[in-house]
């Protein structure tokens, strides 16, 4: 960002003997921080609750945002194809991995006040920076397409034509940006994300076998058959909780929110709370569609088809809630993912990048955000494109792209020069390394299942 691109004031801070430029973005952030400081200065239970309310946001948004169209379709396919069993505790485990990873981005953002893309570019150079950006750009764009597929399919259940469904989604996305304040955007998006929990009442309507649920959570049984389909669902469910855009989004949002090292504890609570809510919605989706287990083939199901299949069992109202849940999942994720792309572009291109920017000062930020969403939405409307191809690969691509992204996250959070006293402790490094190993192993298992299916069968007999 070059000086003079936005209204600003140069102040000579005599005490520090340095020039400081204050912008409107700084003013908006300072207003938010002043409220946090005021809440922190009091020690009543009410003020602590208020402080928590002020500081939650990025963690819940990233977790519920990742419960997106393809993720909910993946959970729905999991329930329909494997019923109640191994995948219930497995999905909880994947959210555990997401917490480990996302907590690091909170510390990194709070300690450095820089976005993830910016840090990789500046600390490790443009060579590795561009690799990360290409991974993020491709992954985000493919995922955005699937969000609009989910929205189109979900609204299609109610007879809404595709073009109208896409226009509704874009209108919601652009409306969330109208305030040009990070705080307002965050609260509007949080309110929308809360509807992700709609899958919980849908699960209750399906009357799951609670004894079987408890047994599965404790014993991880019944185990699914070991084969290519299972490996694909395992990878898809991991990709439904742990993806590169989440790293970039939560760190950038933490910075844009103005969080500091004093807020890290609340950032952790925010992340844990988000993971708990998102896991509840994910499990709700699996339980809802588990009633279809043994009755349908769920290989190429889309959102509306799941809702239609559920309708005879949970009724029109329940099926409508399921379809609306898919629409919400797509809309919230389209907001967070396009914002993540815009943050990363701004950080790398050194252009203003904040949701606190008025449009005239953040033209490139809002243009990238709007164009990403519009392009993905437009592609969904082109007749005859093999979009099922995108739905099939998007979660798998996310899992495969995570290990390279995690290496740089790991290096950054262990970099004492930029992290100071909040660099990762040893036990956290062990957990992070375990996540990298699990993701890489899952990816390799998938590769074996495709390239050498006989070898996979041999592994299954071990």
């Amino acid at each position, binding site marked *: *960002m070059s*000086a003079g691109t936005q*209204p*600003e*004031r*140069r*102040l*000579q*801070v005599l005490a*520090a003997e340095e020039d*400081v*430029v*204050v*912008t*409107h*973005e*700084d*003013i908006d*952030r*300072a207003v938010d*921080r*002043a409220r946090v*400081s005021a809440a922190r200065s009091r020690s009543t239970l009410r003020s602590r609750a208020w402080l928590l309310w002020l500081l939650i946001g990025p963690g819940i948004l990233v977790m519920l945002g990742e419960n997106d169209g393809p993720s909910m379709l993946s959970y729905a396919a999991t329930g329909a194809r494997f019923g109640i069993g191994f995948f219930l505790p497995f999905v909880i485990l994947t959210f555990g991995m997401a917490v480990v990873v996302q907590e690091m981005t909170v510390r990194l953002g709070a300690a*450095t*006040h*820089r976005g993830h893309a*910016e*840090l990789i570019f*500046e*600390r*490790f*150079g443009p060579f*590795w920076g561009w*690799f990360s950006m290409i991974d993020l750009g491709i992954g985000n764009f493919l995922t955005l397409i699937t969000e609009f597929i989910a929205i189109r399919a979900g609204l299609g259940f109610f007879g809404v034509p595709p073009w109208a469904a896409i226009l509704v989604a874009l209108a919601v996305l652009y409306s969330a940006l109208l305030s040009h304040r990070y705080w307002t955007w965050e609260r509007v998006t949080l309110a929308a994300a809360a509807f992700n929990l709609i899958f919980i009442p849908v699960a209750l309507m399906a009357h799951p076998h609670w004894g079987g649920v408890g047994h599965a959570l404790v014993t991880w049984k019944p185990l699914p058959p070991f084969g290519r389909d299972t490996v694909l669902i395992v990878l898809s469910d991991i990709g439904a909780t742990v993806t590169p855009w989440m790293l970039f989004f939560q760190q950038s949002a933490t910075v844009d929110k*103005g969080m*500091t090292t004093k807020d890290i504890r609340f950032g952790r609570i925010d992340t844990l709370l988000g993971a708990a809510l998102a896991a509840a919605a994910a499990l709700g989706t699996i339980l809802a569609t588990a009633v279809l287990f043994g009755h349908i083939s769920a290989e190429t199901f889309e959102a509306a088809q799941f809702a239609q299949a559920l309708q005879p069992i949970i009724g029109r109202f329940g099926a409508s809630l399921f379809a609306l849940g898919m629409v919400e999942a797509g809309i919230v994720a389209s907001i967070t993912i396009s914002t993540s792309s815009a943050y990363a572009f701004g950080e790398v291109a*050194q252009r203003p990048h904040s949701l606190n920017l008025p449009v005239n000062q953040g033209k490139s930020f809002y243009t990238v955000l709007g164009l990403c969403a519009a392009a993905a939405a437009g592609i969904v409307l082109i007749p005859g494109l*093999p979009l*099922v*191809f995108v739905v*099939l*690969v998007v979660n*798998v*691509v996310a899992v*495969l*792209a995570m*290990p*390279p992204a995690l*290496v*740089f996250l790991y*290096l950054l959070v262990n*970099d004492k*020069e*930029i992290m100071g006293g909040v660099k990762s402790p040893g036990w956290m490094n062990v957990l992070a390394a375990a996540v990298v190993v699990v993701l*890489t192993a899952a*990816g390799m298992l*998938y*590769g074996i299942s*495709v*390239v050498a299916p006989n070898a996979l069968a041999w592994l299954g007999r071990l």
Partner: protein
Amino acid sequence: MSHEEHVSDAEAGFVLSTLEHDQLVAAKREPVPRRQLKGGELALAWALRLYLVFMLLVVFWQAWLAVK
């Protein structure tokens, strides 16, 4: 103290007393110092990069077959 439009003295003072110095937009214009990847780090980064490229080819091949 020089003056430019739209930001008053009071607002500027409020910002400087509320935000940490490196939270200011101006402070973020200063690049983070560069560091070189060490041998093991570089090897790991390259290994995972090659892993990603190879696996993506596998994914697209499988998806292509599935779509066909």
